[in-house]
């Protein structure tokens, strides 16, 4: 079923007209409310009336995570706080999170795009949806939640973790749709096997998986093990949260809800638009958001856009699965991690030097994070309990900053490689 046939199956010219009108409004809104972006436009010699249609989009300056950090926490909001009904936050590049705010209308838009996405995946109002994304500051849980309610499906708001409970409710409630990170779905599949739960006792038929990169091989494995159709959903909190784009039943790229979010692909080096169909960095412009609209926000995700007609009948442009990042961000168990966050924690602690090495592994189906920190002579104690206390302190600080568990290992000084140029801070051993 197509939830909003008018918007999802619109002709290209008609879509461009809708986008152009909404873009003009958004440019006005930002120009008059966000001094830092107004200055960027002025520096580029632009006034809002220079942007007449989507064809002028490329003239606009970019917005980056650094702009959000510089305006932390609410400086990029274009409405008074009295209009903001919810905030979410994701990892920033340093200790401070990236904060986004939603008006009532924004939440309605979000629910709409998630509902559309669920329909693309083949979910309907008779489904029982187990939302095993984290509920909280992370947009995954609540994003899926309100989309499901808007659709009229039954939501089990179980959030992430608590695997035994997940299995119990899945079996007892007859869950038909599972929404979580792809790696957690594989973890659940193993737990189901170990618990000896028979496949025929489960009613799973659709999986809505996102928030981290996964491969076609993982898709096959998940589909085999759980007996469901695994659908890829994409989003980022800066733009909205999950539901910025989603695959349809044909699983051939994720349809972008481009009447709300205009995608572009640029060359991350030259910052110029690439030729149609080429891989580059995905850039989004939000055109209906009120709380925190963003013009040409650089996602750092590498992908390409497909404008061919899709079998499902939707005309919404599709984006391929992301091929990687144009920065050093890692996605670990659905959580965004920037090496610079770790560096800032270590710099804050007087006992440590900012020399570290992050090792990411996939053990079984779960990502693990190991952090090697050098023991400097000035804070080396010859008592085991002191060193253990130091290790715990580092572990605690890193975990509370990153929001995920980390195994800290103390290593001898100078054992972490120094290079003249960019230091190698991350070893990612996951095969993706």
């Amino acid at each position: 079923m197509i939830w909003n046939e008018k918007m999802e199956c619109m002709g290209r010219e008609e879509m461009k007209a809708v986008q152009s009108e909404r873009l003009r409004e958004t440019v006005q809104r930002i120009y008059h409310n966000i001094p830092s972006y107004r200055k960027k436009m002025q520096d580029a010699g632009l006034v809002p009336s220079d942007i007449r249609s989507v064809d002028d989009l490329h003239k606009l300056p970019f917005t980056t995570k650094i702009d959000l950090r510089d305006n932390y926490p609410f400086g990029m909001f274009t409405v008074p706080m009295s209009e903001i009904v919810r905030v979410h936050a994701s990892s920033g590049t340093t200790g401070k999170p990236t904060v986004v705010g939603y008006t009532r209308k924004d939440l309605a838009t979000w629910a709409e795009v998630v509902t559309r996405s669920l329909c693309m995946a083949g979910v309907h109002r008779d489904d029982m949806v187990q939302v095993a994304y984290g509920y909280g500051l992370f947009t995954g849980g609540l994003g899926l939640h309100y989309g499901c309610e808007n659709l009229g499906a039954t939501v089990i708001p179980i959030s992430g973790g608590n695997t035994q409970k997940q299995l119990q409710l899945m079996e007892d409630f007859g869950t038909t749709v599972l929404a979580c990170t792809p790696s957690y779905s594989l973890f659940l599949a193993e737990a189901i096997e170990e618990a000896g739960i028979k496949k025929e006792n489960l009613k799973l038929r659709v999986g809505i998986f996102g928030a981290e990169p996964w491969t076609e091989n993982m898709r096959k494995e998940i589909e085999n093990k759980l007996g469901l159709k695994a659908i890829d959903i994409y989003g980022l909190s800066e733009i909205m949260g999950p539901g910025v784009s989603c695959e349809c039943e044909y699983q051939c790229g994720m349809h972008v809800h481009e009447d709300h979010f205009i995608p572009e692909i640029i060359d991350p080096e030259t910052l110029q638009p690439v030729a149609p169909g080429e891989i580059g960095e995905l850039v989004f412009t939000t055109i209906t958001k009120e709380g925190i609209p963003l013009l040409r926000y650089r996602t750092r995700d590498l992908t390409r856009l497909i404008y061919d007609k899709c079998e499902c009948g939707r005309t919404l442009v599709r984006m391929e699965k992301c091929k990687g990042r144009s920065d050093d961000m890692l996605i670990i168990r659905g959580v965004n991690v920037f090496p610079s966050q770790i560096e800032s924690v270590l710099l804050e602690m007087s006992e440590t030097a900012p020399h570290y090495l992050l090792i990411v592994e996939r053990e079984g189906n779960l990502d693990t994070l190991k952090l090697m920190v050098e023991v400097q002579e000035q804070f080396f104690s010859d008592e085991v309990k002191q060193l253990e206390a130091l290790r715990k302190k580092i572990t605690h600080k890193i975990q509370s900053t990153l929001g995920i568990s980390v195994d800290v290992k103390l290593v001898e000084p100078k054992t972490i490689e120094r290079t003249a140029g960019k230091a190698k801070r991350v070893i990612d051993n996951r095969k993706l």
Partner: protein
Amino acid sequence: MIIKQLSVFLENKTGRLYEVSQLLGDAGINMSAFSVADTSEFGILRLIVSDPDKALQILRDAEFSVRLTDVVCLNSPNKPGALAKALDILSREGVFIEYLYAYSMDNHTANIVLKPDDINKCIDVLQAHQMELVKASDMYKI
């Protein structure tokens, strides 16, 4: 009475202990006593050597995390109950022992290296009870 002990941070990986002993051996530094405290993640090598300051410099130059720690060495009769007697005195006087290790050179006496929380108090207490402490200069010579 205070003895300078070398403490070296070691990762749990093969060859590190060998490297330390090789470096000190090449420099003509003799080890009188040593012990290794190990956890699953790392180890701390503690050693008493003939020239602690020189050994410190050598290991530092080789980029080990190393420091000098003050310890005392008790010379005790090598017979049942001798250690218990010493520890009984220390605990009654409120001296806390962070760690200790011991070795015996002959059949009659044993040396017990102690790292107390308060080293001066520890020395006072032991001497007040006529316990024999090994002089630093003698310790380095062994």
